[in-house]
């Protein structure tokens, strides 16, 4: 059985100067101000949700540059649809949906994902694991693990297991049924488990 490295304690999150929008009332007032043209208010809204958008896009696309382009597109869309989202039950759900769709559009212009066999070879041949920092290695394995998945499997796994949405929330974001989402998630988890074990087995 492959031996995985010891689990480390989660690193401290970086602090962001964000005034939390705790309740729907806070969010409504900020959205109202942003709709009226207050860019500072809109910036506050962006700071609140930028992690959600950029990190999700990064995991779906695998490229920080592409993820930044998508994030810009998503926030501009948010600004132009502030009236619509104000009435939405969940702004984060709206943002996840728009981010996933924007990633689809971005991916259409990019090459297809790497196959499982190729990803394994790339992971071991490209860099000496001992030379990568621990964080760099984790990031690399995460990126390669997601790359071996199909687009639907990747979206389901990222939203469910990395972003922590429930199965029903994932189904709403992806516009699928819960049964479909469960099937995609289970396949994705098995593939990822196999890839990670193979990666560390080759490393030893």
């Amino acid at each position: 059985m492959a031996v995985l490295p010891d689990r480390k304690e989660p690193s401290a999150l970086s602090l962001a100067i964000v005034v939390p929008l705790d309740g729907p009332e806070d969010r409504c007032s900020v959205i109202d101000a942003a709709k009226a043209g207050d860019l500072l208010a809109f910036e506050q809204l962006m700071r609140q949700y930028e992690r959600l958008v950029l990190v999700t896009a990064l995991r779906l696309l695998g490229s920080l540059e592409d993820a930044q382009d998508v994030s810009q597109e998503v926030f501009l869309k948010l600004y132009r649809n502030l009236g619509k989202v104000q009435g939405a039950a969940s702004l984060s759900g709206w943002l996840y949906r728009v981010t996933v769709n924007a990633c689809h559009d971005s991916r259409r212009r990019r090459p297809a994902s790497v196959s499982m066999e190729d990803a394994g070879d790339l992971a071991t041949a490209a860099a000496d694991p001992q030379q990568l920092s621990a964080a760099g290695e984790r990031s690399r394995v995460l990126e390669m693990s997601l790359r071996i998945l199909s687009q639907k499997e990747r979206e389901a796994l990222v939203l469910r297991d990395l972003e922590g949405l429930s199965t029903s929330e994932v189904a709403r974001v992806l516009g699928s049924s819960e049964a479909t989402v469960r099937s995609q998630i289970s396949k994705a988890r098995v593939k990822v488990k196999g890839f990670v074990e193979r990666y560390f087995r080759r490393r030893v």
Partner: protein
Amino acid sequence: MNCSEWEERLALYWAGDLDAEEAVRTQRHLAECPGCQVFLSGLKSGLHWLQEAHSEEPSPAHFAAVRARVLGELRAERQPFWRRKLLYGLAAAALLLAWTAGLRLQTPGPPAVALSRPPVVAQALAAPPVRESVMPAPGADRPVLSRHPRLVKTEPVMVRVVTDNPDVVIYWIADKKGE
């Protein structure tokens, strides 16, 4: 059902994605199957490892860059139409000036012009001096003719124009009265 068929169920069981009845069946199978226990353990480790990797986010500078781009675009959209057109026009004019200056630097200068008198050509073209007789005006005293009548020489001038192309040389021959 063999263990490979339980893999996807185990993958759902791990995160509580099975309904109650399926979860109970899976739990019973796990209690009896060491292979599936090992599989489940590997599944948990692998996915926990990914979740920890996911918690490491991009640096704050990347987030700031996105904010700056979005706010910059929104501010630019707010500029009045005429001001935007003016800025675009100024930018276009600056580009045109820069391009024209670049062209002038590349354009070759006028060809060098040199005056020269090749001896052969000069001799061929040298005209004999012309005697100029001085006719007295009617009623005037007879002029005194000098022993040396004034001669006016016409000397031709040849202009040799040298161009950038060494194979092309222009000769321009013109009469020039002595000054």
